[in-house]
């Protein structure tokens, strides 16, 4: 779509940023999948790997920030270039948070290990995690293709994750009410579910950033939400 810069070194700097974002995205995606797998299988070695991967992700975010700041200082970017670099900084921040959420889930593996995760809940969590993984994967593909329409489509799909999260929330409550001995495990799982739901939100943020990078405008209208978990348990009307 856009032609090359007269200064080829400038193109190289932008390419570097793009490549690093793709790498960060790949790692964040993997961490999220690993964290949930470690949780449902009680695999503490895999959990440990997720925790150490987060260090790499944090480091990558700092490198992207440094490079972006140097590029702004040296090139004084404007128009698409400027939006591209500002977008890169935002996306790097979102991906770093995705990594943190994956790590937080991994840390809970040890806490729930003793009791194990009930099969039904495990399936729910896996399903939620699959949805988030698809969002993340697709948004990273859109990052590569820069399609504003696809970014918009992803943004509108966050609803599904919210709905799934709400239903898991209800289910966890039921387990806790059935037997108070479930409370510890279920509380941890509730946090894990919330982490995954937040990952979906970050994917949506990234979709909005890509839309802005491409068009220079913010997507119109509110994000669709189906997150009614905050009203679960409220006295029915």
């Amino acid at each position, binding site marked *: 779509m856009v032609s090359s810069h007269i200064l080829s070194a400038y193109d190289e700097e932008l390419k570097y940023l793009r490549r690093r974002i793709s790498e960060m995205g790949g790692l964040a995606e993997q961490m999220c999948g690993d964290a949930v797998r470690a949780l449902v299988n009680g695999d503490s070695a895999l959990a440990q790997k997720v925790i150490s991967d987060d260090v790499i992700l944090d480091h990558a975010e700092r490198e992207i920030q440094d490079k972006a700041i140097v590029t702004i200082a040296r090139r004084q970017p404007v128009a698409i270039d400027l*939006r591209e670099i500002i977008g890169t900084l935002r996306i790097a921040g979102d991906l770093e948070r995705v990594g943190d959420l994956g790590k937080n889930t991994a840390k809970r593996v040890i806490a729930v290990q003793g009791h194990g995760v009930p099969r039904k809940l495990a399936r729910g969590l896996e399903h939620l995690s699959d949805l988030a993984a698809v969002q993340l994967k697709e948004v990273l593909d859109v990052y590569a293709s820069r399609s504003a329409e696809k970014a918009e489509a992803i943004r509108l799909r966050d609803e599904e994750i919210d709905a799934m999260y709400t239903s898991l929330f209800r289910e966890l409550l039921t387990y806790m009410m059935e037997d108070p001995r479930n409370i510890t495990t279920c509380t941890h799982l509730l946090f894990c579910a919330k982490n995954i739901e937040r990952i979906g939100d970050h994917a949506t943020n990234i979709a909005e950033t890509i839309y802005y990078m491409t068009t220079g405008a913010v997507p119109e209208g509110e994000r669709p939400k189906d997150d009614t978990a905050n009203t679960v348990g409220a006295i029915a009307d």
Partner: protein
Amino acid sequence: MNMLSEAAVEKALDKKMNEVAYKMIGKDVSVYYGEKRALFDVNLNVRENTVTALIGPSGCGKSTFLRTLNRMNDTIEGCRVTGKITLDTDDIYDKEIDVVELRARVGMVFQKPNPFPKSIYENIAYGPRIHGLARNKADMDAIVEASLQRAGLWAEVKDRLHEGGTGLSGGQQQRLCIARAVAVSPEVILMDEPCSALDPIATAKVEELIHELRANYTIVIVTHSMQQAARVSQRTAMFHLGQLVEENDTDKMFTNPDDQRTQDYIMGRFG
């Protein structure tokens, strides 16, 4: 009833606030140098008390357009201007127009500082004298001081007003030329790459000056430095191959321009 009329007044005021006041209007302006056409039906309006930057690659017609605004092109052999340019309501290409008076109303600052080989004082006093703006020495002293103040040069030269203007540094010389342009109380100031011969500090001082002058004058500046256009102007016009490609708010122009050619040019990409 009172309420109603108040609301009506407010509405009228609001409308006036939002109304764009144009100082100069260019309609279908074309310029020919002999057989060669340098500008193609340019329609560009210059807003009052606004800095308008003209940008574009070399030979795009931006300087040519600037020069049509005070008929500097008249001095070029074989140059022909068609279309209409008005200053307030006056057609500046009308036969009745006194070109000398026009250039007092629409002053110009050039790329290279070009002070007269005279004292600093005389550099400023020359214009007001030929236009008969001062009745006596005291009047003239006041004009010289006020002009140098406006150009931010007074503090630096007040003790050596009678020394040669060419003895100043490049940046000071350029501000002297701006003071000279201001001395005849122009309404519009045209600047043709006023900082291209200056170092960054002198450039910053001239840019600060442009920013201050905007309150009292309408300014049109041609610049090769996109960053300068972004820094000093409120409106930016992009020229390419003799045509006006896009004119927009500077903020919009440098974050999300409408035209692909503008985009490629300001980002330094191959068009």
